[in-house]
Structures are given as C-alpha cells and as structure tokens.
C-alpha cells in the first residue's frame, strides 16, 4: 500500500477551493469588524428620495460577502465529507478516509439536527438552542463526540484498529503510514500515525472519547446531586448549618486541585481505602436526594409514597452496595453473587476525586441561588400553605433555579473533562495504557518535539469537546436570558 497524504490526489483541486473560500470569509469578517469599530452599524437609513434602506452601504456589502463565503466554506467542507463515499479508497487522503470512518456519526448528527430543527418550537429550552449559531456549533461538537463514543464503545465501529494492540514496525510512524505487514481484513493504514508503542493513534483517540463520555457527565451529575442536597438546606435555613457547611466547602476549595489529586489518587492511598470510604459517603447523596424529592412530593398520598420509597430504597440500595463494595479494596463486604458490577480499579478512585473536587463549587452556587429565591412571594405562599421545608426547597426553589444550574452543568462537564485530562496527564488513577485523552497526551509528550502527532491528536480532541461544551453553555445562557 502507498502512504496516504493528508488530502490525497483530489485534494489538489479541493484544497485551493477551501483556501480561497476561507480567505474570503476571513477578509469579509475582518472588514465588517473594522467597519463596526469605525462607525456604529446603520440599521435603517432613509434615502434622499424618501425611501428606507434596511442595511445600506459598505456594512451591508461586507455582511453579504461574509454570509456568502460562509456558505461556500460550508459547501466545500461538505464536499470533503461526502466525496470519499463516491471515490475509491484514498482518493481524498487521510481526511477523506477519516470522514468515511465517521460516517455513522454524520448520519446520527444529521438526523438529530434535522428532527430538532423541525420540531424546535415544541422542545422548550432545548429547541431554543437552535436559534443561536454559537449554541448550535457547540451542540454539534458535543454530539459529535457523544455519538463517536457511543458507536465506538458500544458497537465497536469507527475505530480502525484495537486501541491496545501494537503492530510491528509501526512505532512513531507519521500519519497515513501503511501497515508494515498488511494481512487481509485488517485496515491497511494508520490514519493518524502510530504512537511510541506502535499503537494506532486514531483508534486510541476514538476509544478515548468513550472513557470521557462515560465518566465526565456522570461525575458531574453526582457532584450536582451532592451540591444540591447540601446547598439547598444551607441556603434555606442559613445559621449554624450554613456556617459549618460553607466552612467545609471553603476548606476543600482552598486546596490546589492537583495537590488533592496527588493525595487521593496514589496507589498507597487506594490501599488504605480512603477513596473507598469517600465513595461510601458520596454515593449516599443520590439516594438521599431522590428519596427526599419523592417523599416531599408524595406526602399527601401515603400508600403510594410507601411503595415508591420502598422500591427506590431497594434498588438504589442494591446499586449503591454493588458500586461501593469492590473486590480487593478494604471495602469488600457484599457477596459476589449479589454484586451487579465491579467498577474497574482506578476508575472508581478517579470518579470519587472528581466528584469531591466539583461538589463544593456546586454547593456554593446552589446556596447562593437558594438565598436569593427564598425571599420570593411564591415561597412565602407555599409556607403559608403549610408545605414542608423540603417540599419548598425541592419543588419550589430548585425548579426556579434551573436556568443557571443547567448552564453551569454544561460548563462543569467541560471542567470535569479537563480534570480527567489533568489526572491522565500526571499518570494518576487510570491504567497507563488506557486510551483516555489525558494519558495519551502524557505518553505522547515525551517525544513531542520529534513526533508531535501522538500528543496533538488527543489534545485537539479534548480541546474540541471542551470548546463545544463551553459554546453550548454560552448559547443556553443567551437563550435562557432572552425569555
């Protein structure tokens, strides 16, 4: 097999086209930027003959050119994605083949966007997201990685090779290198090159997304459940409870995150079981949260309440015990026959420490929001009605704090992703051959000045996911403020 170049033979005429349209886009946006600095944009202008022009002069022209070039760029990019389907293998080089590997993701993305835009008026805040360009761009980036993770993690699609297998002769090879010894049925190229252990960088990146997409949102949800369960009463009751909880939160926040990680995620610490005990405490909060939530709501219907709470405690408790009890740690008391699953060694520790680091910030946000909202009239009305404090907190205050919390949730998933990367970067927690992005960056950085591709690929992947989450949060904030 021949080595692949970045855009292959067809790139010879697609690349200049792309360069031209991007240059035009940049020039047009710069022009309208400079114009907006020099003079305020003219929205409506009355002309001497008595008519009105909606957008006149250079401003309008620059805007029009910008939009035209944007569409042209989008069209060329679509060509890059679509052409490889019709052309023979390698005609559009590495980019073409990568885009072909991601085909299921493109289809899923197109379906999601098509359906969401078609029904956006009926979808509430989610639908409003599709009114803002920034929000849509962020959502597209996030969903790209979510779909990639699902297809790669559950159905083993997309990736070209096994992320852990080294193939001989492929050590530190540049992107597009053909396999040294190509067997039938094996994908013939390392699309993004090989790392210093001769594994496929592309497949590792794809499988790394599965680890991030599994841990980051779940850890953020747990952090939110802990923060909400403690923040609501702290803000609502204030007084001693608030002082104590705030002191504890500030205590954790005063730790530099990396120091905390180094203290919690070392093998010695795992041996003592401190993270396992922390997991026992932290994982209680979701059960407590949902228990109190349903208990407060169903108080007028005692029979139903009993049934629902019993089910919740039974299943929640079972999940809790299976999660907490781990073979080979000091906390191993639950019989194996009843143990639903074992979280692989390092992951539980990583999960716990990420939740632990995030929960105090969420606590502070919820506490602040609660203090603000509890002075509203509808809270006073509920109190006069004789509702219980927990009902007021969970069913009156919490729903009205959802706007800022949703925005922070998106940002926090991004932050959690960064934290996971930090852990990997220092080689803490996850096993060293794990394909997650932080560990891959850590492995790749040693040869960075000679073979940058091994570290660049996961770095850019992580950047795009976090950027997507931040853009999504920005779009959500804008749209929720517009109401």
């Amino acid at each position, binding site marked *: 097999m021949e080595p692949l170049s970045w855009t292959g033979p067809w790139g010879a005429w697609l690349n200049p086209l792309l360069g031209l349209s991007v240059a035009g886009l940049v020039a047009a*946006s710069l022009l*309208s*930027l400079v114009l*907006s*600095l020099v003079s*305020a*944009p003219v929205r409506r202008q009355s002309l001497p003959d008595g008519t009105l022009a909606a957008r006149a002069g250079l401003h309008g022209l620059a805007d029009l050119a910008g939009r035209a070039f944007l569409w042209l760029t989008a069209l060329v990019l679509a060509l890059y994605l679509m052409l490889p389907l019709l052309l023979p293998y390698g005609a559009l080089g590495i980019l073409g083949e990568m885009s072909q590997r991601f085909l299921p993701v493109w289809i899923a993305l197109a379906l999601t966007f098509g359906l969401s835009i078609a029904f956006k008026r009926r979808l509430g805040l989610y639908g409003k997201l599709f009114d803002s360009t*920034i929000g849509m761009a962020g959502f597209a980036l996030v969903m790209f990685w979510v779909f990639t993770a699902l297809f790669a993690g559950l159905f083993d699609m997309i990736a070209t090779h096994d992320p852990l297998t080294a193939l001989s002769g492929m050590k530190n090879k540049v992107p597009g290198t053909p396999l040294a010894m190509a067997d039938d049925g094996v994908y013939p190229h390392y699309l993004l090159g090989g790392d210093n252990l001769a594994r496929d960088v592309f497949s590792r990146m794809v499988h790394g997304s599965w680890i991030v997409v599994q841990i980051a949102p779940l850890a953020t949800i747990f952090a939110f459940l802990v923060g909400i369960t403690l923040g609501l009463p702290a803000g609502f009751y204030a007084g001693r409870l608030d002082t104590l909880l705030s*002191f504890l939160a*500030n*205590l954790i*926040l*005063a*730790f*530099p*995150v*990396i*120091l905390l990680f*180094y*203290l*919690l995620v*070392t093998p*010695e*610490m795992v*041996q*003592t079981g*401190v993270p396992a005990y922390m997991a026992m405490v932290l994982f209680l909060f979701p059960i407590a949260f949902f228990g109190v939530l349903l208990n407060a709501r169903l108080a007028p219907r005692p029979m139903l309440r009993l049934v629902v709470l019993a089910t919740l405690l039974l299943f929640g408790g079972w999940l809790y015990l299976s999660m907490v009890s781990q073979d080979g740690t000091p906390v191993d008391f639950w019989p194996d026959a009843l143990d639903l699953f074992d979280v692989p060694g390092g992951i539980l520790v990583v999960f716990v420490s990420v939740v632990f680091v995030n929960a105090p910030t969420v606590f502070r946000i919820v506490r602040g929001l609660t203090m603000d909202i509890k002075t509203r009239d509808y809270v006073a009305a509920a109190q006069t009605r004789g509702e219980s404090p927990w009902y007021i907190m969970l069913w009156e205050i919490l729903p009205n704090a959802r706007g800022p919390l949703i925005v922070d949730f998106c940002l926090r998933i*991004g932050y959690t992703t*960064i934290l996971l*990367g*930090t852990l990997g*970067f*220092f080689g803490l927690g996850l096993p060293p051959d794990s394909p997650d992005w*932080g560990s891959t*960056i850590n492995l*790749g*950085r040693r040869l*960075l*000045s*000679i*073979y*940058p*591709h091994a*570290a*660049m690929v996961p*770095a*850019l992947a*992580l*950047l795009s996911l*976090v*950027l997507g*989450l*931040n*853009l999504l949060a*920005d779009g959500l904030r804008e749209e929720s403020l517009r109401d």
Partner: protein
Amino acid sequence: MIRFLLSRLLTLLVTTFALTFIVFFLTNLEPSLEKIAKSEIGTRVSDAEVESWLDRNGYGEPMLVRYGEWLGVVPGWTHTVDGEVVAGRCEAPAGAVEAGAFCGIMQGDWGWSTVFRRDVAEIIGRSLALTGKLMFWVMMVMVPGALILGVLAGMREGSKLDRSLSTVSILTTATPEYVSGVVFIAVFASTAVGLRWFNGSATSAMEDATFENFTLPVLTIALYGMGYIARMTRASMTEVMTAQYIRTARLKGVSFPMIVLRHALRNALIAPFTVIMLQFPWLLNGVVIVETLFNYKGFGWTLVQAAGNNDIELLLGVSVVSVVVVLLTQLISDIGYVYLNPRIRVS
C-alpha cells in the same frame, strides 16, 4: 473594618490548621510510612524490621503527637538506647541531639527532604523564587491582555467586535494548559513543523530567562486564565455602560472613547480585581502542569516530585505554602473589594 479583618484572619488560621492536619493525616497513613521505611532500608525486609525502623525514626508515635511535633508545640521525638539519646527530630548542627527541644515549622524547622537530601525550607525558598519569576511574567501578559479584551468586548454589547472577542475568550477558557502547551511546543518548537522559534523546554530559563525560552510557558499559563478574567471584565463593563451617569455623559456630548476611558473604566475594573485575586488557586494548577511540561524546576515541579516520590516533609511544606497563598489571596481580594467599592460598608 478592624473586626472584619480580625474575623477573617481567625478563619484563615483555623482553615490553615485544619488543612495542614488533613494533609498531615493523608501523607502519614500506614502504607506511605511503610514505603518510606522500605525505600530507606531495602524492599526485602520483614514487617518486624519495618516496624522497628519506624519506631527508631519517630514514626511510631500517635498521629496527633507527631502533628504537634511537626508544628512545634510538642517536643521532638528522641530515640534512646541504654539511657543515651542516639537520634531525634531536633538534631543540632554538631550532631548532638537535645531531648525535650521543640523543632517544628513554628521554630522555622521545616524538616528534611528525602528525595533532594536537603532542608525543605531551602528547597521551597528556591523554587518559590523561580515560580515567582514565572508568575510575574504571566501576570504581566495576562492581566493587561484580559482587561483590554474585556473592555473592548464590553463597551458595545452585542456588536460584532463583542461577539468575536467573546468567542476568543471562550476558546481560551476551553484550552487547558496541557493542551495549549502541547500545541505550542508542536507548532513552535518541533522539528516536525519546522518553525523553531522558541525553546520547547524552559530549563535554561531558570538562570537566564530570555524571550526564546520563556515565551511558551508564560503564554501557556496566561492564555487559560485570560479568557475567564476577560469575560468577567466584559460583564462588568456592559453593566457599567448601561448606568445612568454614562448616559448623562453621552448626552453632555462626551466622545465615546472619552466615556470609556474616563467614566466607565474605573468602575468596571472593581469586579475583575477580585476575580484576578481568586485566580491564584487556578494559576497554581497551571504552574504545576506547565512546570512539568516545560521542565522548569519551580514550585509546581517540586510539588510533583514530592508527591510522586512520597517525600512526606517536603510535600507537607509545599502544601502549607500553597494553602496559605490561596487563603491570603482570598483575604486580599475581600479587603480589596471592600476598599475599592465604597457602596459596601463593613460595620
């Protein structure tokens, strides 16, 4: 004001004590001690030997007593053989051991680093100086850059300039140091790309910082913090720009640049000040990552070495310093906020 200050100082002291105890507890758990013993006397030793080594070196006492010794409120441990003191925590320069002497951080004795074979105080002092140099340049790049970005974006809310600059600041907050550092090295310092403008390592910057070897680390830390401060500045600027007195100035016929510079800027910079001070804990993270990536042997690098090699006394010293720095910046930011903003009165 005095009462406010005193109560804040008291909280700071209590927090420092609590945090140092937590760090002491976490670093002195049994497996860590066992590992130290094994690294000192060899890996193939029986449990009894480990036990006796720990006893001889003062690790056998209860945790609270040893925390007191480390603080300097309990006399240091001594090991006696046949009624004669042979070893102890407080070793005098001549090698003689005094029984009943206090030597903890309150007496200025920070302990002995087992990795670097030096006094912890000396190591921390030197690495702090190096990190101080790095932070100085980071601040010189980050603060003006962020303020300019934020003010430009916030002066006309919703304009094209605002939207493009806001997107830039979102991009910088979405780029953690280990990503931007890797990208910078790959682009500006690798043989693969070929632009060899800067050095990919900052080791030589420890003695002699030049534009070539210091730009990348400084830029890497500055970029991540810049976006956040810029967004805060923008928010506070847009708020100020809608205030009544700005409208008055506008109606009076003051030119737009004059309004921004003379009237809006001063009030818009109160909030970013607090944010900049509160950035210190985050910058500390950045420092650890960047110093590891660029091999600059400052405070962050020392932290990684101490934690990675189970160097208990050095790790304790590093933790105390970083925690105190974080708490002090919080205190300064609170005081500064009250001082800058006359609307807040502390009674």
